[in-house]
């Protein structure tokens, strides 16, 4: 019942690998790791959720927070490899229309 966070820094992209559960206990740790990199202008932040087996609204809140910062600082937030269960949460709340959940990565200045 924890969350492992590993960030691979590429030239203009940060790949955030998450593994474990995102809830009220682990969300602060995710916030601390994710939010600062969304404030880098032009950066692509790809969050890999393949190994996230549980998430609730606390996790959605963190991603909404990150999305706001990325719009403000002109970076790009992208969530990839969502489990069906996790994806369902985005769909129920309507967030799938707002946050980019595509697995295809497009340029920042498209």
């Amino acid at each position: 019942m924890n969350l492992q966070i590993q960030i691979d820094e590429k030239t203009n992209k940060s790949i955030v690998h998450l593994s474990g559960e995102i809830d009220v206990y682990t969300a602060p740790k995710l916030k601390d790791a994710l939010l600062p990199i969304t404030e880098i202008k032009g950066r692509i932040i790809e969050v890999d959720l393949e190994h996230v087996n549980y998430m609730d609204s606390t996790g959605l809140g963190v991603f909404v927070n990150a999305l706001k910062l990325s719009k403000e600082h002109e970076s790009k937030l992208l969530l990839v490899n969502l489990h069906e269960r996790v994806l369902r949460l985005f769909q129920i709340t309507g967030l799938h229309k707002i946050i980019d959940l595509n697995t295809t990565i497009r340029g920042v200045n498209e």
Partner: protein
Amino acid sequence: MESFDFIEMSFPAKPEYVGVIRLSVSGIANRMGFSYEEIEDLKISISEAVTNVVNHAYSEKENGVVTIGFGVYEERLEIMVADHGGSFNLNEVKAKIGPYDSNESVENLREGGFGLFLINTLMDKVEINNNSGVIVLMTKYLEKLGVELNDDHVSTGQ
């Protein structure tokens, strides 16, 4: 009077226990024969209710407690989540729940307050009592026996 088993557990209202509470509901629901999908729904619902208690019911100085009750019936599981903290403004909470609107600008997106909406979507029946502290009572039926009931309804007990 229909017979049922009642299980009650109390936890410190702290973030680190929410995962333990999820394991509890998972074990009970598994024993009752709920499907994998339904167990996942139950885990999210109970976490949302407990997270509300952890975040809102007690001030930082208080050593708050969250009490969980499981009513194990033949055809349904009733889960009660109760705190003994200050009550919240229910109408205010209800006004804030609901899915995101894709026309909403990103700047105005809510970052929280939709736990109750998720509970309401994932459970068959939800009741909230807000007299002294807050009690959330939620029910999930086995094998869709509760389909004839209104799926999307939050009622307020007084």
